Structure formats: C-alpha cells, structure tokens
C-alpha cells in the first residue's frame, strides 16, 4: 500500500535505525578503546608496583590495587635473567622487551608489559581473552540506553505520524461518505494548511461540475418545454383529421399536419446539433465548395422569401471550400438566412456574399430589417431566447445552433448592425478548407 502514513513511518524508522546504528557503533568503539587503554594503564602500574615491592624502586606507586589481581601474571627477574619472583601463575613469564607486546605463553594469548628498573626486569601479562571480555561488557553497557531508546522512539514516531495525519483521514472520510450524486462542497474541516488546498481544489472541481450539470439540466428542461408546444400541435393536427369528411378540408388538415411534423423535425435537428458538443463528431477531410453552399441556401429559402415579397440575391462566390458537409453548413447558414428573410420587410432583399480574409472565408448574410439593439446583438445567441419580433413558430434555437455548429467546424458567427442603413449583417467566419471537395 502506497500510503503517506506508511511511507512516513517507514522512512522515519529507517532514519532512526541509521542514526542508532552509527551512534551505537561509535559508542561501542569508543568504550572498547577506553577499556583497553585503561587495562594497559593497569598493566603498567602493576609492573611499577612489582618493581617497588622488590625494594629497589624508590618511588612508591600510588595507584590503587587492581580488581583483577588474579587475572594478572607478574614475573620479576634480575639483570642476569634469574627469576626472582612470580605472581598469579605457577610458571614464569618469558623475558620481554620493555613496553607492550603480545605473545602466546603456555597455550594462551597474552598481552604483556615489560619494565626495566635498576637491574630488575618486570613482566606483567593479561590474557587477551579476558581483556576482550571486559572491553565488550563495558561497551555493551554503554550501548544499552541507545538500544532501549530505539523501540521507544519508533513507537513515538508511529503515534505522532498517525496523529498528525488524522485530518487527512477525516477529510478522506468526509469525501467518501458523501451521497453518491452529491455535488455539494465538502464541509469546512479544521485542516492543516497543507491539506486545505487539496479540499479547496476538490470543492472547486465539484463547483464546476455542479455548474455544468445545472446547465445541462436547464438545457434539458428547456428542450422538453420547447418540444411541448410543437408536439401538442402535432397531436391536435392528427386529432382533427378524424371527423372530417370533406376532401378539400381533409387535404388542408393533412397539409397542416405535415407542416407540424416538419417543425418538430427541425427542432429535433437543432437540439441534436446543440447537444453534440463533441468536436470529434465532425468528419475530417469533408469539404463543401463555397458557391455550392450559397446556391443551395438561396435555392432552399428563395421560395419562402418570395412568398413574403423578399428577394434573396447571391453575389459571385469566392473560390474555395469550407470544412463540413452541406447539411452541417446549412445548419449554420440556413438559420441566418431564415432570420434575415423573416425580418426583412416586403420589397426588401437579403444579400448573400462571400470573401476571403487571410486563411479564412467569410460568408455574409445582409438583411434590410430593423437590426438589433447593441444589447441584443449577443443575447440573441442564447439558447431558447426569442427576441421581440421573432418569427412565428420559432424555437429560439436557430442562432444558438448556428454558432455551435460553426464553432465545431472551427469557425465563428457574429451579428452586427449595418452601417449604411437599418439592417443586420451576419458574419460567418470559417477556416478555408485546404482540399476542395470533388463534388458539391
């Protein structure tokens, strides 16, 4: 488990062990060395004492008698090498040079000290085994506090780390125990300053999710509401087909039903186009020539315009192609042309133009309607917004759809009032497609 708690505890324990081992080694080595020096000191003093006891050493030795007399062997010889005195063992130590030395005597390893004073040769010896035991026990005694402290410290580390990480656990539980679909912020907890940003970030994320979800719900509610009226009309249009025997009247009612179906289909298409926010939904490499698009738009909306006494005029289109298929591009341009026709008074005209601007192609729909107030120029793009004088039977989705589809094709739609007279200009700016389509 890769938990912060575990990692903290383990790394602190490793650090503790390392420090403990180094200090133990240091204490041990130091204690052993001190003990050896002390024992060497003892050998020297015993040698001097032995020389003095023989009567020829003038200066008395003030050092206290060593505790381990029995461990020490002493042999005193005269300058001819004759043994004058032995102590601690039945055998005599061999003659040794002055100072410290080590050698095997009678099968045991000894550390020896030699001293020559006034014709006497004193040798003092101690088994190295005994010396090592003394040094070891002293060193271990010095190690004991460190060894006892280590587990206590480890325990303390465990407890402290756990306690300090408790707020994290509390925060985790607070997040984990929330209802499955709750997007409310995690409640304020008394958290340390370095954990609080995490909770703040989670809350910020939840907030964005909440907004997005509210937006979608709102859209769904609006869409359901927008569908009610056209569907209610469909229902009634179908209902009134019953109980009508006159063929002409029946034909008129059937025609009304077909118009109602067209309205619902149109609305569904717009809703679908709006719901697809997925840029991947656009097929790459599909392109439509500019002139084909403009001619199709003019052909499609020309009859409806003529019925209102409005002319749709087409300026020669620029060469080149636009990204997207004809259906997608008509979702953009068609809505704009339809609006332009709806707002242009009888006798007026709607102009479709195109020109290049750098790498982009700009399509313009110019009408002779009343135009829009500056505040409305942007507001009319809101979904389901229906401005004053909006054409009958509209859903308030046309401009929102145009903008959404244009954005998906990498373009943009903007409205502005005409400078020369009353009227509106819709600019559709789309990237010029590199590969012109083979067919319109």
């Amino acid at each position: 488990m890769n938990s912060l708690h575990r990692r903290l505890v383990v790394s602190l324990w490793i650090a503790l062990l390392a420090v403990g081992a180094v200090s133990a080694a240091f204490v041990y080595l130091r204690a052993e060395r001190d003990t050896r020096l002390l024992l060497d000191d003892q050998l020297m003093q015993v040698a001097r004492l032995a020389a003095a006891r023989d009567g020829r050493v003038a200066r008395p030795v003030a050092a206290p008698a060593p505790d381990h007399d029995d461990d020490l062997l002493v042999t005193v010889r005269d300058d001819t090498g004759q043994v004058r005195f032995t102590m601690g063992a039945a055998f005599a130590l061999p003659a040794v040079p002055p100072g410290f030395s080590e050698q095997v005597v009678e099968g045991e390893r000894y550390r020896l000290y030699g001293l020559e004073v006034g014709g006497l040769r004193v040798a003092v010896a101690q088994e190295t085994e005994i010396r090592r035991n003394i040094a070891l026990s002293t060193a271990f005694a010095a190690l004991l506090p460190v060894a006892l402290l280590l587990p206590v410290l480890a325990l303390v580390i465990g407890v402290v780390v756990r306690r300090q990480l408790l707020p994290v656990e509390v925060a985790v539980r607070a997040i984990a125990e929330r209802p499955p679909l709750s997007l409310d912020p995690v409640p304020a907890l008394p958290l340390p300053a370095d954990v609080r940003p995490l909770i703040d970030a989670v809350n910020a994320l939840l907030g964005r999710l909440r907004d997005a979800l509210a937006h979608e719900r709102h859209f769904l509610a609006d869409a359901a509401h927008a569908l009610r009226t056209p569907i209610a009309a469909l229902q009634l249009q179908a209902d009134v087909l019953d109980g009508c025997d006159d063929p002409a009247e029946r034909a008129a009612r059937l025609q009304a039903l077909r118009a109602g179906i067209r309205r619902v289909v149109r609305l569904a298409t717009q809703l679908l186009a709006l719901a697809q926010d997925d840029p991947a939904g656009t097929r790459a490499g599909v392109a439509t020539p500019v002139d084909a698009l403009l001619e199709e738009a003019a052909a499609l909306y020309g009859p409806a315009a003529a019925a209102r006494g409005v002319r749709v005029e087409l300026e020669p289109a620029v060469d080149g192609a636009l990204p997207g298929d004809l259906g997608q591009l008509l979702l953009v341009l068609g809505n704009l042309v339809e609006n332009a026709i709806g707002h242009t008074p009888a006798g007026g005209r709607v102009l479709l133009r195109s020109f290049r601007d750098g790498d982009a192609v700009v399509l313009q729909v110019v009408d002779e309607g009343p135009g829009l107030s500056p505040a409305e120029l942007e507001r009319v793009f809101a979904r389901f917004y229906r401005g004053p004088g909006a054409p009958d039977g509209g859903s308030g989705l046309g401009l929102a759809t145009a903008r959404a589809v244009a954005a998906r094709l990498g373009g943009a739609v903007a409205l502005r009032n005409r400078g020369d007279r009353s009227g509106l200009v819709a600019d559709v700016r789309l990237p010029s497609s590199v590969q012109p389509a083979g067919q319109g």
Partner: protein
Amino acid sequence: MRLLLIEDDRMIGASLVRGLGDDGYHVDWVRDGLAASTALADPAADFALVLLDWGLPGMDGLALLRSLRARASRVPVLMITARGQVEERVAGLDAGADDYLVKPFELAELKARVRSLLRRHEGRPSGELVHGALVLDPARHEVRLHGAPVALTPREFSLLRALLARPGLVQSRVQLEQGLYGWGEGIESNVVEVIIHALRRKLGTRIIDNVRGVGWRIGAAP
C-alpha cells in the same frame, strides 16, 4: 356556442379552431394578450367559455385571467399550457381558471372538458340537455326526439343548444347570432329565422316560442 381561444402558436390555434368547429362551436381566435383583453372587454361578445394559453406575447395569460376575474366575469376559463408543474397548475387554478389542461393533450379530452365546464356553468346535472321528449347530447353531437335521432346541421344544432341551455329565457336575434358567427363574418340577414323555421319543421312548430319584438325561447316540452 361561441368560444374565445387565446393561443399564440399558429398550428395549435388552427387545429383547435378546426376541431372545435367540427363540434359546432364557433371559435374566435386571438394570438396575443392585447387582442385577448380587447376581445374579453367587448360587451357584445358573449363567450360561453375561454380557452387560455399561459405564455403569450404582450400580456401573460395569468395576468389576463386575473384582470378578467377582477372585473367579476364568471365566464368559464380552461387553461391550456405547456406549464405542467404542480405549482403552475395551482397558480393557474387559484388565479381563476376553472380547469387546467397541460400540453400536449388529445382533442377528445379537451372537448370533454369543454362540455363539462359548460354543463357545470349552466348548472345541469348531466351532459345531455333534456326538454321533455327532446334530448340534445353535446358529447355525441346528437339530437333525439322520442328516442329517434334527428339530423340537424351544425348551425341548427348550435342554435337549439343555445335555446336549451337557458330554458325560459328569451334570447334576442343579436344574442343568437353571436353564437353562430364570429367577428368579421358577414351575417346573412334573416339567418336566425331561417334556422328556426328549419328546426320547427324537424321538431314541431311548438318547439320554439317567438316573443314578438324581443326574441325567442324554447317552447313547450314535446
């Protein structure tokens, strides 16, 4: 029977005019709040019932309803609206609607509710208008005399219904014409007399009394 339809959607409005027209109602249709309040304020227009949409351009349907009730009008109002939330239905009924129908709905249900509202408004216990051996069934659009069906034209049916709805009350020519025509329709002269003549021929001369100089009322029960 003259109804006022206040509905801004062209398709729904046209269908309702057709559907209710099939049942012999004359429907006057206005598409915004302003025209609606003008129509409702017209003293000559004696609407039997108002069909009211909530969301209207110009003036909100609910505000329209409140001002109608504030003028002490008792005309039955059926709200037809896409707003189907409980709070909205409550608000509509509290504002003075007599019934509430949420779009989308079936024409048959709307017609049934219209009949029910008219029946209650006229204080009748059942849907049929009974006058002795003469029975007029608005739901089936049928008239029976001594149990035998009598074929009537929509206008004959409409005028007979108007007379049966207010037994004993003398109704003037203008009042009766109101039920047959909307605004803007040229009223043919003597049309009321022609229809009454036809009704007397089919149902017996005593079925309708003429009060000279005042108007007509339903006659003695057959």
